[in-house]
């Protein structure tokens, strides 16, 4: 009996996922899949703009607008885009297409792949109930696996986790 109690449990990590653009979708899924591969029990809590990352069909976009750090490799140099140009309709989808192409070329996994690997490796996913109500989503809109929960559910997970991240 004493042995069972002293057995070391797996370390735990939680991630609050708050952003749903193509670029910001990467850190939570990369860290979740890697931590799961390293034997941690991982929980992801999807809230606000992170919630749509659970939708069955993803069409992730990013915007160079207001993002002076976004400089894409082009013609041997790194090019940013002035805000006044980023505002033109179609620039976001063009920039997103360019980023997707770059990622394919560099052997970076797609978000769909990483999300599938996360589900496969037993990452627990919690969809924020309040955000679901706010943006009129139901679990039917989402991939198989996520459960519903609120702030208290997350805090309960966080108090038992060694690593808690907000992304």
């Amino acid at each position, binding site marked *: 009996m004493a042995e069972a109690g002293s057995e070391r449990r797996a370390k735990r990590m939680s991630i609050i996922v708050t952003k749903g653009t193509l670029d910001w979708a990467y850190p939570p899924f*990369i860290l979740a*899949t*890697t931590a799961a*591969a*390293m*034997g941690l029990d991982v929980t992801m809590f999807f809230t606000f703009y992170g919630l749509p990352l659970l939708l069955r069909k993803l069409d992730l976009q990013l915007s160079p607008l207001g993002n002076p750090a976004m400089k894409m490799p082009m013609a041997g140099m790194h090019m940013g885009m002035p805000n006044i140009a980023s505002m033109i309709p179609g620039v976001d989808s063009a920039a997103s297409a360019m980023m997707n192409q770059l990622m394919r070329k*560099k*052997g*970076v*996994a797609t978000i769909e792949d990483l999300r599938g*690997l996360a589900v496969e490796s037993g990452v627990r996913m919690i969809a924020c109930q309040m955000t679901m109500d706010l943006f009129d989503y139901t679990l039917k809109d989402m991939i198989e696996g996520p459960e519903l929960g609120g702030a208290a559910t997350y805090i309960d997970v966080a108090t038992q986790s060694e690593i808690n991240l907000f992304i």
Partner: protein
Amino acid sequence: MADQTVDAKGLNCPLPILRAKKALQSLGAGGTIEVLATDPGSVKDFQAFCRTTGNELVESSTEGNVFRFVLRKAG
């Protein structure tokens, strides 16, 4: 010779680690895998992966621009 070879050449972080983990799962304790990767970050990453998981990094070497790792699954 390793029991299994994982070709992760051309793949970027975290795919070499995830592919290696998948291969290790299919093996019993003491089983070995060989991982081939071109991601320079994988050198540190496989050290860290093994330190955390308890699997043994038997070999870590470089041939040209290809990194080769041999891992033995923890018992």
